[in-house]
């Protein structure tokens, strides 16, 4: 299986991770991604017919705790790093636009 990752695919995944990229960057990434993904294709050699995927390596089962009210960080302190705010809110431009 060889997958050429073309510039359209690069732009598609860039948009999925909300990353602005230029045409030139898309070109560079396309070549790099194709060779990296090609290297990963070696996993196809491994027989995983009856193998359960590893989703957890600690063997912990549902870790629960009592739902008890406790003091937490002060709201002013909590919002200290917010670049643009109004009152107790984080302020951003339009979320639902014309699209």
């Amino acid at each position, binding site marked *: 299986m060889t997958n050429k990752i073309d510039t359209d695919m*690069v732009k598609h995944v860039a948009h999925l991770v909300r990353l602005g990229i230029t045409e030139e960057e898309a070109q560079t990434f396309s070549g790099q991604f194709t060779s990296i993904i090609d290297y990963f294709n070696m*996993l196809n050699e491994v027989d995983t017919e009856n193998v359960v995927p590893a989703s957890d*390596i*600690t063997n912990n089962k549902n870790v629960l705790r009592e739902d008890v009210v406790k003091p937490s960080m002060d709201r002013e302190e909590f919002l200290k*790093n917010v670049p643009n705010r109004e009152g107790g809110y984080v302020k951003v*431009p339009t979320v639902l*636009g014309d699209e």
Partner: protein
Amino acid sequence: MQLHNLTIREAHDMLATKKISSVELTQAMLKRAHDVDEKIKSYVTIADDVALEQAKQADDRIRKGERITPLTGIPFAVKDCISTRGVRTTCSSKILEDYIPQYNATVMDKLADAGAVLMGKNNMDEFGMGSSCENSAFFDTHNPWDLDRVPGGSSGGSAAAMAASLATFTLGEDTGGSVRMPAGFCNVTGIKPTYGRVSRYGLIALVSSFDCIGPMTRDVYDCATVLEAIAGHDENDSTTFNAPVPQYNKNLERSAKGMKIGIPKEYFVAGMEAGVESSIQEAIRTFEKLGMQIQEVSLPHTQYALPVYYLLLFAEASANLARFDGTRYGLSVAEKAKDVVDIYLNTRREGFGDEVKRRIMLGAYALSAGYYDAYYLKAQKVRSLIRADFETALASVDVLLAPTCPTTAFKLGEKTSDPLEMYLSDIYVVATNPAGVPALSVPCGFSNNMPVGMQLIGKHLDEKTLFQVGHAYQQETDWHKKLPSL
């Protein structure tokens, strides 16, 4: 004896017997950091005021006869992905360049409680993505043994700071070798603990199912001391083990005679630097001299560890780094944004470096419809096989022994143009993280005047055996005592 070269144990003895004060020790370390770090560039931030304040508090504790610990008054530095309340925490990324956390990582609270003295924050590959520290958005860190060479990565600043005696201990973070690889390149002792042994709360996440905070120190004794202080269950990290933390230093002097060391045959193949291989062979002879039994073992899926590691890293990192969106903290590029998506696109374009961009895009690719089964799910299945390899091999021996890296430190700029070639330098260190097992890197010689490291890999939660074997080795050898001339 110069103060900056003291081990934790030596410094503690001098502090406890009031031969020196923590303020004196801390001032000496800070002065050296300001003098020497011009050429090493291991610190992103040196926190003089915080350090001196904490040193005064430690001295008060000692003077008043309050409870002191082996770390009371000891100056340390941490990799800049560990949140420090009131001290800038950047992950060596432009996106967090001015970020000052409002809370401490659990490890920082534990070290503060122990009375240790925070000197500052160490440079790293941006968000831990790299093997040479060259992916820092700010500057390269130089290997104290040869300033033209890399310190390794991603905890390169923490390793270089130890090698150049710019802290008495440091904390790194190991997602796929990021403590062990730079420890090996810089002649430092460092451990990646069992996944879940040390709380990740307040660690800025790279791969949540791999990330492990681990100490970097002058010797195994110090490493055991620091791990004991930072390990343990944390209600803020539900993946931490609810198991007691052993008193690691109590086990150190026990003889290693009769214990079994497994040599994974897949790790000794073409491509290893001759001086690395001969150093490892010499180490094997030392272990035989200590009365340990050596036997060959097999980790049959070794060659697949690298693609499994990177695929899962890309996938988890793409999700973890979604939080850097320019609206709640960190860099925000909001001018001309007509909607909130514009803020995301512009902030992330300006805030992330190329390697971060590559990895989160590849992660989205591996997780996207049509490719999920072929890449992400396939990698999780092979991960199960890698984990089973370690369980099988470690069922018949006490520890595994392998080189930390196939070569010694490479030159700055040597591998930056080819991302895949850079990934291949991690070949011996990545497998332990998908498996979750602990691994200790210990200095074991020199090749072309550059340090060589070996790693001891152990069973789940069996750090005490790694320390015992590593300490026995350091009683027989003095590689770990060698210092670069600066």
